[in-house]
């Protein structure tokens, strides 16, 4: 075993770190009204642009400082996590169900089904994804369900492409042929024999997709097209931070760190799941 591999193996704690961060952020989001030190919407112009706790001029109870309207940054981040996690789970699962189903059908049945589905995937891949998302939300109207729907409509192709290729590979294996000889129907084989063998890939992609959904939601709220402007979102806080960057850098730094940690954690999880399920990589 070479040195690089030893170092890589030693890094399995980062899986625990990733899981720990996601659990912490998720719990904080779920119990936001109990955990958040302040009302995330309460404005107080006497408290505008307070710095984080270790700097001069900080106020107790406003740990990460306040924005230009005097709203508590930590409380806004905690409440913003609610939107982020709802979108991450709902959009990723929706994209996964649609994409994996179509991918399984295209890969296992082949022929016309494959040709039509692959053509639709080609068309989808010719759209710039961020522009497509912004366009869809503008069309569907802002709101939580629009954001979830838009992400699912765009990102199902990620699942479809991978699962199609895997299902295609699986359906050439001997065990599928044996099941056919044993008299199973084609849909039965697809669901009972092929599907369980592509589940590891689906699970890994699902974790990656949750990270992507968090980013897309942040981008949408950054251009002010996510949910109603009152509710705090990570992207919305970033947009405020980008504007007041020279007066209050913390309004940009903390949501940025939150987003990076969350995205890295989701992708670490995805990678780890892929390795765990893959006998060759393991």
């Amino acid at each position, binding site marked *: 075993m*070479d*040195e*690089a*591999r030893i*170092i*890589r193996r030693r*890094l399995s704690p980062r899986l625990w770190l990733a899981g720990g961060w996601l659990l912490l952020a998720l719990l904080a989001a779920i119990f936001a009204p109990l955990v958040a030190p302040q009302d995330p919407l309460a404005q107080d112009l006497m408290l505008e642009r307070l710095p984080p706790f270790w700097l001069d001029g900080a106020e107790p109870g406003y740990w990460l400082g306040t924005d230009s309207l005097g709203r508590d940054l930590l409380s806004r981040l905690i409440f913003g996590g609610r939107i982020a996690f709802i979108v991450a789970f709902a959009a990723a699962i929706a994209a996964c169900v649609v994409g994996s189903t179509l991918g399984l059908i295209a890969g296992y049945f082949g022929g016309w089904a494959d040709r039509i589905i692959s*053509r*639709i995937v*080609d*068309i989808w*891949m*010719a*759209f*710039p*994804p*961020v*522009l*497509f998302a*912004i*366009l*869809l939300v*503008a*069309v569907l*109207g802002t709101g939580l369900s629009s954001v979830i729907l838009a992400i699912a409509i765009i990102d199902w192709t990620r699942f479809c492409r991978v699962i199609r290729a895997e299902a295609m590979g699986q359906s050439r294996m001997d065990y599928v042929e044996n099941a056919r000889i044993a008299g199973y129907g084609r849909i039965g084989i697809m669901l009972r024999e092929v599907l369980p063998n592509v589940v590891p890939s689906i699970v890994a992609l699902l974790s990656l997709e949750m*990270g*992507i959904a968090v*980013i897309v939601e*942040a*981008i949408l709220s*950054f*251009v002010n*097209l996510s949910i109603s402007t009152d509710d705090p979102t990570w992207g919305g806080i*970033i947009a405020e931070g*980008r504007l007041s*960057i*020279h007066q209050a*850098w913390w309004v*940009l*730094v903390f949501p*940025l760190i939150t*987003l*990076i940690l969350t*995205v*890295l954690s989701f*992708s*670490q999880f995805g*990678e780890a799941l892929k390795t765990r399920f893959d006998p060759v990589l393991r």
Partner: protein
Amino acid sequence: MLLQRFLIRLLTMLITLFGVAVVVFVVIRIAPGDPIAMMLPPGATDADIGRLRALYGLDKTIVEQFFIWLSGVVRGDFGTSISLRQDVLGLVFNRLPATLELAIVALLMAVAIGGTTAILGARERGTAVEAGIDIASGAALSIPDFLWGLVLILLFGVLVPIFDISGRVSPQLDLPFVTQFYFFESLLRLRFDLTWDLLKHMLMPAVALALPLAAIIAQLLKQSLKEVLDLDYVVLARVKGFSETQVILREALKNAALPTLTLIGVQFTFLIGGTVIVERLFSYEGLGNMAIDAVINRDLPLIQGIVLVFALLFVLINLVVDMMYALLNPRLRHG
């Protein structure tokens, strides 16, 4: 053989473009907001609205509207922007060069950074250096361009303010350019003062776009190099007394590069897709920034035009990559 492949690809490309046109047209028409009502002052009468609807062809059925629009597109007429009241094609061509320049500079950076990292990683394979490269490229890959852009704004726009964080060029400068390719034209005109100003604006958005792609290149090229480095002819070169770096650059690289080249082609379309939000982040006056404004203003003809131009760009890049692959890959060339 190659010609046949090319013609089939050309045909599927046209079908894809037609599909994109249909999808974007349908998506936009189901929008609940009325773009005409938004254009007129609050006191406008129904007759005014009706006249304007007829002017933009919005009084016909969706299918009629689609074919009127499509027949215009085929003749190069993309319609008139509702919010800017100018020819859509003109507006798009005015902004496209800025986006292309940004994307090409970002691509070159990604190849330079990713290629160097891959060669270093292959040379130091099995050491702590390689593990460090793996971790760094893994992180660079997981963090998307939008977040890299914000990190760069904080680091080099605020903490150490050496680069500009908004715009394409300093507004007070007198620009002698005849094309919209400011950066390339400034190089050709040897106006390096302008090149420097443009670069100061372009560098951070370009790096933000380049980093995830650089990470992918680093990972894949390093993997291919490591595989090639165990082959007999490379071992022979090593026996001849070449240093490891020479072996990689002179012998291994050209045989390991093909998978990476194909990947770069596909990833380049993702990079161009990323310009939309990165341009917004840096207030860079490109096509993507205009696209977001068009969506916010519900400017239907402009949105359609921009999306179609992006789609055309994507399928053209895929076509070129496919043809390059066919030309470079001996198995397909003789197959």
